[in-house]
């Protein structure tokens, strides 16, 4: 007997002739994401991907508890819908009973309150002498006899024992839901504007879930923002990279640019002007690093810079599409995703981000296009963009 991970593919299986390229990308992403879990065999059969250790003594596969980290990692790979940790073995019905028994023992030791169960069975190997309903009946009876405190419940049981008869037999309990989506690398690359807040990591996560690999750009304004704020963004990028894979984080030294804007641009227009300069720099960096779009965490009406007029004003200065996956979402929904991907606790750390110090008391929320142009009249925008791109530090971020 050995233990394996069964990962189910989702949207990828709906692809037509190009399905193969999506599957290859998915397996490559799994291979990268799971490399710290030892020497693994990752192969596909129909709409499933099987992951098993090449060496028998791989500690990540010793039992369900030991497999928690690797299961979490598989769930973070876009393209996977759900995963199960299964016992793989050969043999007749007795061997199925034996494995189902040890699995039930494990589940009861972890969850002493469990009282009800059901059996679900699939028989791919038609040579197996029992059909699925018979397997369910017989195995259910065996479990009832072996564990007299348990009863069968068809709707919402405490646990399910799944049996699959294929080339080998598999026994497992339930499945862990993953993040679905498409394998990262199947779409073009995007440049994420990453601040230290809640929204932008979620925006990055959402675009990565559509197969988009990411670069990220952060505007750092030391000494107005501390190195702790920078570290917070690096930490957030790392969290996003668990889903998006390796990314380059470009840290723009924004201090002098911000001070120039502060001195030479009207206070109430500063937010819009600053956004416009940031997007221009981001677009230049995007071009340089082969990205085809910009991604922001904007949500309509959330703050002064996120009104429709402000967004029109920022859209005007770049040619690349600006993707705003959160545009129609409310804050609560964004926070839920942020919690779900493990970014929330980092996002709410208190360090200032570069937007807050230079914000006017009453920024223009509905800037008129002519005012926007007027506000930039005394700025050497070209020089600012050049200066921003030149003063950029790039850090490679990996999920490990």
């Amino acid at each position: 007997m050995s233990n394996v991970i069964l990962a189910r593919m989702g949207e990828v299986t709906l692809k037509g002739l190009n399905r193969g390229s999506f599957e290859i990308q998915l397996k490559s992403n799994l291979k990268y994401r799971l490399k710290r879990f030892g020497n693994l065999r990752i192969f596909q059969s129909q709409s499933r991907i099987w992951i098993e250790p090449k060496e028998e003594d791989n500690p990540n596969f010793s039992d369900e508890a030991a497999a928690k980290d690797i299961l979490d990692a598989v769930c973070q790979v876009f393209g996977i819908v759900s995963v199960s940790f299964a016992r793989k073995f050969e043999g007749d019905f007795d061997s199925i009973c034996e494995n189902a028994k040890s699995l039930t023992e494990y589940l009861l030791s972890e969850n002493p309150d469990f009282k009800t169960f059901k059996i679900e069975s699939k028989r791919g190997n038609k040579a197996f002498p029992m059909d699925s309903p018979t397997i369910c009946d017989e195995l259910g009876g065996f479990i009832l006899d072996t564990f007299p405190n348990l009863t069968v419940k068809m709707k919402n049981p405490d646990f399910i024992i799944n049996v699959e008869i294929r080339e080998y037999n598999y026994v497992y309990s339930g499945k862990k839901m993953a993040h679905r989506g498409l394998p990262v690398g199947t779409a073009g690359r995007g440049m994420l504007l990453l601040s230290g807040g809640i929204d932008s990591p979620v925006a990055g996560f959402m675009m990565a879930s559509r197969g988009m690999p990411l670069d990220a750009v952060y505007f750092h304004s030391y000494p107005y923002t501390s190195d702790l704020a920078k570290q917070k963004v690096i930490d957030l990028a790392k969290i996003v990279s668990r889903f998006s894979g390796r990314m380059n984080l470009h840290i723009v030294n924004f201090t002098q640019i911000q001070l120039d804007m502060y001195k030479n641009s009207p206070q109430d227009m500063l937010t819009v002007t600053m956004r416009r300069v940031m997007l221009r720099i981001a677009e230049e960096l995007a071009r340089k690093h082969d990205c085809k779009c910009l991604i922001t965490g904007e949500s309509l009406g959330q703050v002064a810079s996120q009104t429709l007029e402000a967004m029109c004003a920022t859209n005007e200065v770049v040619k690349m599409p600006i993707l705003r996956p959160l545009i129609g979402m409310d804050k609560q929904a964004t926070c839920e995703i942020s919690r779900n991907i493990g970014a929330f606790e980092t996002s709410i750390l208190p360090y200032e981000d570069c937007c807050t110090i230079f914000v006017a008391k009453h920024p223009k929320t509905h800037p008129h296009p002519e005012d926007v142009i007027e506000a930039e009249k005394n700025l050497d925008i070209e020089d600012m963009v050049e200066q921003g791109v030149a003063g950029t530090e790039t850090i490679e971020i990996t999920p490990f």
Partner: protein
Amino acid sequence: MIYFDNSATTFPSDRVRAVISDMMKDEYSGNPGSLHKLGVSADKAYGETQAKVAKLLGASSDEIIFTSCATEGANTAIRGFMSRNSRAGRRVISTRTEHKASLECLSLLEKSGYEVVYLPVGRDGKPDLSELEKALTEEKTALFCFTLVNNETGSILPLDQIVSMRNKLSPDTKIYLDAVQALGKMPIDLHKMNVDMCSFSGHKIHSVKGTGVLYVKNGVRIDPLILGGGQQKGMRSGTQSLLLAKAFEAALEEAVETMDDSHGNAAKINEYLRKELAERKAVILSPEDALPYVLNVSFEGFESETMLHCLEIYDIFVSTVSACSSKAKKVSYVLLESGVDRKTAANAVRLSFSRYNSMEEAEQFIQKVDVIYDLYAVRK
């Protein structure tokens, strides 16, 4: 580097480093509780250190407990006293400008049903003594809990007046004093000061982190915070560290030896900076009569943290509020409680000096402040 953050911590002095290096030798590494000769000699040396520290603090040897830090001292004293002396009363008198080590203990007492009276403090950081008198006449008070020198402003407690008020109106009330920022910077004679418990920290006087002392006056009974093998007469179990005790002793001895010169130096630096900064429209928040080692100043146009990072560019190190809580984005509660407005308090930076700082450093500091104003000022 200009290090003006000595109230947060100091660097170990050469003498302390030498003592520590010496104490790492095998011959000093025995357990003072062991019965063999290595243990006996360690125990003897420990006793000698205790006696020396006691003498330097104006106390008796058996009144000195070595701790890991002043926070442990505060917890042991405040919680230990109140739990041991249930018949002494249910009331504690303090202020809201104490260090968090004390305030959190008081908050715990409140949750356990004790009453804590927080005296209002004035702009000079001193508690309102007429309110103290009133509070003392209302109900039996078990404990006073005060700080001799405030860690954020340098404000000095009118201890003599408080002690005589206690002696006159409520002689059974005991006094716990946090003297962390006073140690080595003003004379400490515990018997003369007539307090009952007092905590000190080593790393504020050029010893190392992990060293502290709690004074508990003979006759005052407290429950220990740390139970175990009964070391230090059961008041603080855990194997005694001769090395740390010696490091504390060395730092204290040196601080006492250099106290007068050091005070004069700090006063000169303080006076110069007060004058120069006031000319630059910075608001001095430390009271005039504060201990000169601490200077709290609010820079217009700079949030506290921005000024901290601006100075950091030039290798000048200062604090915003108190270092223990500066990771939480908060305005100093000490300043707000002292009546400083929120905007001024939000721009406050604490400069704190040691005997190693010089007038040249103070002058360089002012030069850099001018540069920072030119380059980074954001006025709203």
